[in-house]
């Protein structure tokens, strides 16, 4: 990455799009040739048309009802994407919000670590998806079980990385801070916590990735909105074009979340050696 080559030179763009274009062309030929039932495999053109329809508002614009912007954002897809994103953010905030203080305590204090570690080791290997029946039993249907499952998905990566981050703080920083007169609280807030942020943020990134997987699954089971719900609903109607359009949107949302996390990382770790770009 250190080479200052333009990333989007025409030649590179051409090379990069070669395989996708070939695959889409092949897909189009297969689905229009009549060899494959279009209900099983809709043509790419059909998927794009469906995606566009999914994006656009369902009702005609009525100035008396709402503003133009609200109308433009009233499409089904944007509502679904918002519902999913809301659950991811809320669930992640709950999971990471619990994992961070516990991780800091466990990483900083061997006694607390010894107290909690056995339980964590027992719970950690259970995939968040396995909590679905229990989540529905406890919380019924709706946002609550989804947020619960997402929180569990985000909890363990953030916890494990926070513990590792606190434990791997270079002793030289601790010595320097003690020499400068730092007490326990100052040491923790101004030295250990910032020194551990690269680890903590790596955990947050894994955690939000897990949260995004869990949100799609939990929407297929526990709620009646969101991108996961929508593609399962489309299956009931045999709308394969809408399923693929929905999958494409899920991919785009995942990409957006990842880019957002990356930006946050780069900002918070602008002091860090590994990130000079």
């Amino acid at each position, binding site marked *: 990455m250190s080479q200052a080559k333009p990333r989007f030179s025409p030649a590179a763009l051409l090379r990069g799009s070669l395989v996708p274009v070939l695959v889409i062309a092949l897909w189009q030929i297969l689905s229009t040739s009549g060899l494959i039932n279009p209900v099983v495999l809709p043509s790419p053109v059909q998927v794009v048309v469906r995606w566009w329809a999914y994006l656009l508002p369902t009702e005609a614009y009525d100035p008396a009802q709402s503003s133009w912007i609200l109308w433009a954002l009233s499409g089904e897809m944007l509502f679904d994407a918002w519902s999913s994103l809301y659950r991811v953010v809320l669930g992640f905030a709950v999971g990471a919000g619990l994992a961070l203080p516990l991780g800091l305590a466990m990483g900083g204090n061997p006694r607390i670590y010894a107290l909690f570690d056995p339980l964590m080791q027992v719970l950690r290997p259970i995939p968040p998806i396995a909590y679905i029946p229990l989540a529905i039993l406890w919380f019924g249907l709706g946002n609550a079980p989804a947020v619960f499952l997402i929180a569990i998905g985000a909890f363990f990566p953030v916890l494990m990385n926070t513990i590792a981050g606190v434990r791997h703080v270079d002793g030289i920083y601790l010595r*320097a801070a003690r*020499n400068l007169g730092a007490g326990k609280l100052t040491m923790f807030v101004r030295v250990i916590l910032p020194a551990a942020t690269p680890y903590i943020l790596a955990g947050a990134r894994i955690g939000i990735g897990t949260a995004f997987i869990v949100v799609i699954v939990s929407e297929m089971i526990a709620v009646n909105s969101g991108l996961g719900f929508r593609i399962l609903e489309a299956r009931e109607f045999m709308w394969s074009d809408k399923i693929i359009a929905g999958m494409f949107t899920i991919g785009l949302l995942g990409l957006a979340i990842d880019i957002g996390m990356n930006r946050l990382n780069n900002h918070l770790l602008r002091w860090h050696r590994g990130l000079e770009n």
Partner: protein
Amino acid sequence: MTPMLRTVADTAPVAPVADAAPVQIQVRGVEKTFAIGAQKIVALQNIDLDIRKGEFVCLLGPSGCGKSTLLNAVAGFQPPTKGTVTVDGRIITEPGPDRGMVFQEYALFPWMTVAQNVAFGLEIKGMSKAEIAEKVEWLLQKLHLQDFRNRFPKDLSGGMRQRVAIARVLALDSPILLMDEPFGALDALTRRTLQDELLRIWEEVGKTILFVTHSIEESIYLADRIIVMTYRPGTIKRDVVVDMPRPRDGSAPEFNRLKRELSQMVMEEQQRFSQDEIRSVTAD
């Protein structure tokens, strides 16, 4: 206390820092042992040392002679197994801002800017924002860091980083500066520049400096007194007073005579170190 104001024009030999100054650091019967596996290593043995207020003392010796261990005992990072270190009459049990330490690895906080690093100790002291800003500014000027105040350590050269580390401990106004091979990782020219700046600051603010080095030339260039240490067990081999006016000329006959003398002492210990190393390799 004798303030050590010596200028370039001052060519007359000056008496070593003053026998009149009171003893500030007192090391008595210090012994330090480490266990590495089943092996017991005596890093320090029977160390008795008095350092007077305002004195610039170098600890000189090859790797493994315990010079850093002695410095860490004074700093309070590693209390001795036996004996005591006393500073201004108090026995040292833990590190503190009255003994500012400069590390070879700089030990700057990478998440803080240059100015924030320098301000850190002052914030702990509970100084007001205005006082901190003023003091930080003064220190940045003094160490020629004013154009780097908002940079992070990763963007600085080794020499610049060590300037920040020096500014950071000077901010504490501690009467004692402990320096653990602070210029060891720097190139020769940067090293000389920083040595000169350190001397300038020392003469200006009159601190007691305990400086660990394995460079014979560096110790002669800087110190009032050079403590040559032996290799395992670490003891004091010789206590040499450097009675030469500053700035010292590395090509002067007096300088070279002392250099030869010290080289011989250090080489004897270096040879014991090498033999030990060879022995430990062949034992594996």
